[in-house]
Each structure stands twice: as structure tokens, then as C-alpha cells.
């Protein structure tokens, strides 16, 4: 109980610090939002008027606390670029990013766990060498180029999907998911490669431990040794790794969203940064911090499920 309260307090402090840092950072960035908004129609009076309307003429702490209070109530202000409430704007983008994250993590888990075990089981043999080499190559391709290659091969040459043919979930769920598969693959491939590598070495490390010998001495089959005894132990460090990967995709895959034209959080962030749309940027950073904290919390929980040494100490 005490532990939970401590965690919650830490959580709030983390969020508070991140939001303050984000807020201050974007106040000192060169590039005035008003100038950006007015563009070539800039005049002093218009700028002054706009500043007042946006409350930009108040002091920094004043602005921070009024923003924070709004954030607590779910009001992140209005986007200067889109003239929409930030919460609504982010809410819509979030669905895309979340589904992208879910789908790509699904790929990662479904593909990398069998591959990692396979590589470890046959470590040093041809199957392992091939898997390792392939994952190294997958990690060596710059993410944006991977996206372009996928588009090129599957979108244009093979015509398995229509590049840019994104449709929203409400509009056409089937179309939404069949399009999302490709960006999800682009997100997942490097992560699959990393997870395979990680899981492989984790399994190999575990295989050297004494309890494996005990399991064999009991008359277990090799597959049972691997799946029943080793896997659960080997997955423990992988969980942390997967948690980091999940946090990463939840934060918006900036480049992949760009390449595949997905209206997700990452693209909104890039657009908002270049437009100096503070309200949106701050809210997104807060969201990312929140996502990271939640993921860490979940990883903690899962960790406890998997590892009694953590749970019972």
C-alpha cells in the first residue's frame, strides 16, 4: 500500500517536472508563434492584438499555472494552427497512434519470440546465423528508408495496398486496419530484430544456469526444458525491453507516420513544432510522459507477475 502511494506520488512528480520542462522549453525556443501565425501579413498591431488574445503577454509562471490547471481539467487550450480544442485534436490523432502501437507490438511479440527461441536453440548453427544476420540487416536500414522500401515494394510494385490510402477507423474499419498493417510492419521490423537479438542472448544466458541442468536431470525433454523452464526466466529482461519499445511506439512514430501519411501523434507533433503551436506540443509531450509512466507501471506489474523474487521482496 505504502509502495503504491509512493509510486503514485513519484508519478505525479515526474509528470509535473516533465510538463514544466516542456512548457519552459517551448517558451524559450526561438521562433515566435504569433509571427508564424501571421506569416507575411505581419504587422506590429496585429501581433500585439493576437498576443493579448492568446494570453502570451502574461508572465511565464502565470501562464504555466493557468495551463496546468487547465490540463488537470482536461483543457489544454486551443490550437493556434487548427482553431480546435487541443484535447479534441489530440484525441483524434491518438486513435491512429494507439492502433499503430497495438498492431506493431503484436507483430513484435508474435514474430520475435518464436524467432528468438529458435535462434537460441540452434545457436551457432545455420538457422541461428541466418536469423542473426537478418536481424542485423533489419537494424541497419534507416527507418524512413525501410518505410519507403515497403511502400515501393508492396504498394507500388506489388500493389498490395494503396500508398496514402489511409481511411479513418470510423469510416471503414477494414480499410483502416489493412492499411495500418504496413506502417505497423515498418515500425515493427527494427524492433523485431532487436527483440530477437535480445531474447536470443537472454535464452542463451539462461541455458547456462544450473537450474537448467536440474531440469534435465529430472528427465525433462529438451523442448520442455526450453519452454517450461527457461522461457519464463528468459522473458523477464525482455519484458523491460518490450516495455521500452511499447513506450517508443506509443509516443508516435514520427518518421513512419510521415512516410505513410498517417495522421498520428508523431506527425501532429512535427507539424506543431514547426508552427510553434505551443498548446499542442505541450499537450503531446505531457501525453508522451504519461504514456511512458503508465507503460513503466505496467512493466513493473508484469515483472512482478513473472518474477517472484521481485514480488515477494
Amino acid at each position, binding site marked *: 500500500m505504502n509502495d503504491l502511494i509512493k509510486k503514485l506520488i513519484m508519478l505525479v512528480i515526474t509528470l509535473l517536472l516533465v510538463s514544466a520542462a516542456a512548457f519552459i522549453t517551448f517558451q524559450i525556443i*526561438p*521562433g*515566435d*508563434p504569433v*509571427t*508564424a*501565425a*501571421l*506569416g*507575411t*501579413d*505581419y*504587422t506590429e498591431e*496585429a501581433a500585439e*492584438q*493576437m498576443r493579448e*488574445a492568446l494570453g502570451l503577454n502574461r508572465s511565464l509562471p502565470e501562464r504555466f499555472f493557468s495551463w496546468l490547471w487547465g490540463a488537470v481539467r482536461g483543457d489544454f487550450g486551443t490550437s493556434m*494552427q*487548427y*482553431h*480546435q480544442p487541443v484535447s479534441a485534436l489530440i484525441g*483524434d*490523432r491518438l486513435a491512429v497512434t494507439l492502433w499503430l502501437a497495438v498492431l506493431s507490438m503484436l*507483430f513484435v511479440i*508474435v*514474430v520475435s*519470440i*518464436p524467432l528468438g*527461441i*529458435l535462434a537460441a536453440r540452434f545457436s551457432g548453427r545455420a538457422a541461428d546465423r541466418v536469423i542473426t544476420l537478418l536481424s542485423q540487416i533489419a537494424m541497419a536500414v534507416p527507418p524512413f528508408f525501410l518505410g519507403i522500401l515497403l511502400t*515501393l515494394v508492396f*504498394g*507500388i510494385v506489388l*500493389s*498490395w*495496398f*494503396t*500508398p*496514402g*490510402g489511409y481511411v*479513418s477507423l470510423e469510416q*471503414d474499419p*477494414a480499410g483502416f*486496419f*489493412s*492499411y495500418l*498493417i*504496413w506502417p505497423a510492419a515498418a515500425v515493427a521490423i527494427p524492433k523485431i530484430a532487436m527483440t530477437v537479438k535480445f531474447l536470443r542472448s537472454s535464452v542463451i544466458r539462461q541455458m547456462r544456469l544450473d537450474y537448467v541442468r536440474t531440469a534435465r536431470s529430472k528427465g525433462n525433454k*529438451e*523442448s520442455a526444458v526450453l*519452454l517450461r523452464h527457461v522461457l519464463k526466466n528468459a522473458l523477464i529482461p525482455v519484458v523491460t525491453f518490450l516495455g521500452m519499445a511499447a513506450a517508443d511506439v506509443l509516443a508516435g512514430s514520427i518518421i513512419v507516420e*510521415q*512516410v505513410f*501519411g498517417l*495522421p498520428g501523434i508523431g*506527425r*501532429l507533433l512535427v*507539424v506543431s513544432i*514547426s*508552427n510553434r503551436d505551443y498548446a499542442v506540443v505541450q499537450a503531446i509531450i505531457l501525453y508522451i510522459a504519461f504514456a511512458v509512466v503508465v507503460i513503466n507501471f505496467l512493466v513493473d506489474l508484469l515483472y512482478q507477475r513473472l518474477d517472484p523474487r521481485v514480488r515477494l521482496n
Partner: protein
Amino acid sequence: MRRLTAILMTGMILAAAVLSGCAGGRQEEPSDGIIVGITQDLDSLDPHKAVAAGTKEVLYNIFEGLVKPDKDGNLVPAVAESYEISPDGTEYTFVLRDGVKFHNGDAVTAEDVIYSLKRCAGLLTPADPEVVVEEALSVISDVVKVDESTIRVILDEPNTELIGYFTCSIIPENYEEQDTNPVGTGPYCFESYTPLTSLVMTKNEEYYGEGEAQIDRVTFRISANTDAAFMELMAGSIDIFPYLTQEQASQLESQYTILEGSMNLVQALFLNHDAEPFDDPLVRQALCYATDRQAVIDMVAGGRGHIIGSNMFPSFSLYYDSELETYYDYNIERAKELLAEAGYPDGFSFTITVPSNYQFHVETAQVLAEQYRQIGVGAEIQLIEWSSWLEDVYQGREYEATIVGLDAQLVPSDILKRYCSDASNNFLNYENEEFDRIFEAAVTTTDEEEKVLYYRQLQQILTEDAAAVYIQDPALLVAVNPDLGGYTFYPVYVQDMASIYYLDE
């Protein structure tokens, strides 16, 4: 071991199945309507708040002003049936067209028009701070209703060129949802907008004029960047895409009809006259001579583009002085002489600041930098974000040289006004008393011939002064689905969808 292998295999097959399951799911193009690709997200749906040219060209289909430009650059009546300018140039009287309706079904009243004009001119109290006040319209002192179908605009000072600004959109008075659900009078009605994704518009069935739309539904799809859009073009999922690069156009020739128009921009290397050594006209002229414009056009635009010699582009056919195009012919020797004369026999180096989002200008900068090496001038390229460019270069005027393209309203004064010494947007810090004087005369005169003469003089002054290194009016390359016809180029920045039709229908 066999069991383990079996489990692993099952996993792999499952993964493969999930991945390939989508293979059949290719989405057929929605048959209702066409898709137009754009690469910039819209900055506002309220036409009076939108700033970006990329937004205005889309909203052109939804909104109309009292007058609107046609494809030849003339202003034709739209919401107004006719107009009249008082001889002294201080009063504009508009007669409104009968039976024009907003998309929400309400008829356009004189009150709506007065509201719209006042909103644009910043005369409403309290003013909506986000409305961008058109500076030129600030000479309006009042807009009054004469009768139910006539309104009069009263100016503080005479201005005979203001009619070009009455293209500002007419919107219903007291309508609150312009930001999210815009209502106008144009040939297309707004249907929906999803940030970062698309804007959909449908045909306005009750459009008054002949310019009625042919296509029922138009989707403006927002691509992340030109390269992503190009991929989509290659896959055939976009019907119309303007602003292709030459390279892209040549790759799309088999699938699309490639149309060539003009961007109607003055692309130039703008020099800061307050920064050394560009305060010396000799240096500026030297750069002009050292610029091989044709090579630039060949290199960045595949030879498509129109060389310009001053701050005006050919679409202003009446005022445009084509002789200036050859004023500074490529001549390295001359450039070197001028440099030596200015006291830089060994050249100098400077920085070209270019907004990074304009690939075209970035590439031009690279070519220029390479050309200036021939006369011993080193040019370093600094890419900055558009918003920083606006702030540092355009507002702050802290730069040495920059490359951008300047666009203009359909009014010659709009394009030349920035060279007046006191103009707020004179980011070149150009100063020439003679220019100021002639400009004043040009704007106030009502005599059309005199006006033409004045404007040509102004262009000449700029060229002789080498105010900037004028390069080209870039070609506008548009990919159009071969099934479509009617794509029309305008001398202003618009995408007119009403003119598009299916060829086989």
C-alpha cells in the same frame, strides 16, 4: 524437440498469415469524386484567418468575394453583379447579385457583405484577433448600405487599385462555426475536414453562376511531404497534384497528363541592402552577371520556367517589361570586373538563408552557390525553418541573402510596394527616393496608360539598381488523371475544381 519445432512453426505461420492476410485488402478508389493532393495542412478554415497560400487555394472553391479572378487575370463579378469607382478614387459602389445563397441555404444580404468587408478591414468591434487584417484594406473608413442590394465602400484616401482586394470572402453575419464548419457561396460546399488527413467538399447544387461544379465530390488529401505524395502518385491514388518537380513529372508522364503553367512567383536571390557588401550596387550587379539563369532553370526545373529580370512576372501582361529579362546576361568577366571595381578583386563570402521546407529554393541555392564560385564568391547555405525565416529574415531582416518566391494579389502595386523605403515588408531594406516618388504617382493615377508607364519605370529602376538577383517565374507542373479535363491555370494561387470534368462524360 519435435513439439517445440511444431510450436515455433505455428507461430511463424500465424505471423505470416497476419501479414499476408491484408494482401487482398486493397482498397479501390472511392468512385464518388476525385482526390487532389496537397502537401501543406490547412491553417484555418475561416477564410479571413487563413494565411497560407496552400490554404487559400483550397478555400477558393468554397468562398467567393464580391469579385473574383478569372483565368486571364481579370476580375469578374461574383457576389456583386457590378461595381463602380468614383472618379476621385475614394468610393466603391457594389450592386449585389440577386439570388446568391450561402451553403446553409440563407440568401446573401447586404448586411452579410458589410460584415464580411468590415471584418477583413479590421473595422469590427470587438475585433476577432485571429482575423488577419488585409493591410491594403485599412484605407477603408466605412462600409455603408445604400439599399437592400447596394453597398458603398468609403476610403480615407484615393486608391484606384483596391478592387483587387475585394476578392475577400463573403461569409454570413453572426455565424459562429466558420472555424470548423465553414459556409460560403462558392461552387463547392464544405463537407468535412480532418487535420493532417483531408478536406472534403461537395458540389454546391444551388450555385448561381455558369461556373457550376461538374464533379460531385472533391477530396483534398494532405500528404506529409512531396516525396510521400509522389509515392501515392506512383500508386495512382491521387487524381490531381500540382507542384511537381521536373524530375517527378518526367517519371509520371506515362500515367498522368502533365500540364505546365506558371507559378506566378518572383523567385530571386534577395539581398539585404543593409548588409555589407550588398550595400554596394556594383557587388549586386556583379552577382547578377554571375548568375546563369538558364542553367538554374535547367538544373532545378528541367528547363521549364520563365526568366525574369525584375520584380514582376509575365502574367501581369499589361505591366510586365520583358526587355529587362536580358539586362544582365551571364557574363563572368563583367562580374569579375565589377567586383574588382567594388574593391573585392578576390571575392568575398556570404550566407544564403533558405527556408528548408521549400526544396525548390534550396536546390536553387545550391546551384547559385556553385555558380558564384566561378567569380571567387563563396556562398554558404543555411537552412532554417519557415517560422524562423519569417521571424529572422522577414521581420528581423537579419540576413545577408535569401532565396524565396514572392507572390502577389492581382494588383501591380501589391508586388512592388515592398520596395518603398517605408514599407513594413521591405525586408530587403531597399531605399530609392525616385522609386518611392514614382510608386506614389502610380498608385494614385486613374489613367491606365500612365499607370502602365509608371510601373514599367519602377521595374526598370529595380533592375538597374540590381535590387535583387531576379531569377525566374517557376513553371508549375501539374499531374492530372488522364480521365479528367478542364484543369485551369490562374494567375493567382488557386486550385479551381469547378472547371474539372470527366472526359468520358
